[in-house]
């Protein structure tokens, strides 16, 4: 399988503070890789570097075999991102937002693309609604539609189901599974929901203090650490100061 994301020994320092300490990993085509770790472990910084919003202090990132540093615009055309911490303009309607972003990503056949995403994400009835007046679950699906408007090959998800009720959360997970299967895209999923990670991810990276402290398939990590689920593995690794600090 082809690697769509290749991260080679990237570091990020903020002054003397080392936020990410030389991590390397790959994400294959048609793979969802989980990025786990306690708050402040370097997940968001890593995602920021993959999006070109942050410049690594050292190391290299390749997306679809293109070096990010030199091909930022071409890479941004095939990548997208969703996070509960960023939103779409609140005063625009859903349709206007999707239209604007379709234009920014130079999407051809905008009408068909919006119709396709509206149907898949069940937002058809929301298209003429004001984005700021939507519920969290509705906003989440609209943000996901925006993130898929350019048919990305690489999707970065930062806690995509945070603050969603179980029904909407399950809908989003099922949608992501189906979409990945259908389009063979690569997904990097940062999440604190261990059930979600176990269900969606082929393999996971555990980060702590800016380092990758363990990695592998969820079931292998559970066996390796002698625990019954991924949450227990997460807790063990997060709390094990002596071994990793």
């Amino acid at each position, binding site marked *: 399988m082809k690697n769509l994301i290749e991260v080679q020994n990237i570091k990020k320092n903020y002054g003397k503070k080392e936020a990410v300490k030389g991590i390397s990993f790959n994400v294959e085509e048609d793979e969802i890789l989980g990025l786990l770790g306690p708050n402040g472990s370097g997940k968001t910084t890593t995602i920021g570097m993959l*999006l070109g919003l942050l410049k690594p202090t050292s190391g290299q990132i390749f997306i679809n075999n293109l070096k990010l540093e030199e091909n930022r615009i071409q890479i941004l055309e095939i990548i997208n991102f969703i996070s509960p911490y960023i939103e779409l303009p609140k005063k625009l309607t859903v349709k206007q937002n999707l239209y604007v972003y379709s234009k*920014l990503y130079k999407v051809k056949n905008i009408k068909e693309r919006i119709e396709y995403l509206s149907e898949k994400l069940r937002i058809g009835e929301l298209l003429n609604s004001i984005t700021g007046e939507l519920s969290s679950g509705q906003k989440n699906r609209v943000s996901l539609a925006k993130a898929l408007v350019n048919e990305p090959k690489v999707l970065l998800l930062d806690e995509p189901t945070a603050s969603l009720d179980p029904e909407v959360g399950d809908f989003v997970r099922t949608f992501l599974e189906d979409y990945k299967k259908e389009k063979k895209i690569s997904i990097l999923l940062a999440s604190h929901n261990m059930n979600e990670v176990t269900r969606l991810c082929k393999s996971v990276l555990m980060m702590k203090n800016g380092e990758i402290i363990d990695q592998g398939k969820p079931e292998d990590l559970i066996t390796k650490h002698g625990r019954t689920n991924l949450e227990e593995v997460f807790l063990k690794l997060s709390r094990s100061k002596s071994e990793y600090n």
Partner: protein
Amino acid sequence: MSITRIYGLFLRHFYLITRSFPRILDLVYWPSIQITLWGFISNFFASHTTYYNNAVGVILTCAILYDFLFRTSIGFNMLFLEEIWSRNFTNLFIAPMRIGEILTSLVITALIRSLIGLVPAILLTSPLFGISILDLGIFLFFLFLSLYIFGITLGILVSSGLLRFGPSFENIAWSTMFLLAPFGCIYYPIETLPEIFQKVAYVLPLVYIFEEARNILINQTVNIQNVYYAFMWNAFYFSLSIVLFYYSFNAAKNKGTLINMGE
């Protein structure tokens, strides 16, 4: 009433102010700027009571020109701030847009916003005061163009600050125009300023624009040199603002401001 809670809320704002240089600066310079500007205006009118004799139109024309500059600059800043307020900033910067495309789009949008405000103001002055800004003739276009470029330049400079320092720079965005107003010689000739202020004023395009507007309306003559100097300084500051914007964008990528647009 709980003193502890009152003190707690006070601390919430106090910490915010003391951790942000732009916020401290904002507190200090507003009163200074207002006193300086109105001091010069008062001085001028006290000593030159006949300068604007029967020339209400001059003051009003300068007010409209200044407002156009103000609207252009604030309009540009507003477009940038809207993205921060709506938490859409990150979405914008992960879209495959070149910096030049973002700036061009904002420049065009700011022009349209300014014109929407300007046209009714021009139309109102004629029936209400019997004055038409069109009396400036063909040079009106050059004066407006010059003001527009400077307004955009200020907008880009402030946006660079927002990129570099984050939303705490927002207050500067609102007050840039007031900071420059005393040096712009909008309502009084440059000679009204103390010598040291005159030196500052001469390296700004504003003084040439407003001097020329008054020259055309009062003396009915055109001094091309004023228009030329205005464009020359505009070209300099505009180029500088573009360089600074790129620098700030790169600095923001190093500092992490693009993903942490909080307070």
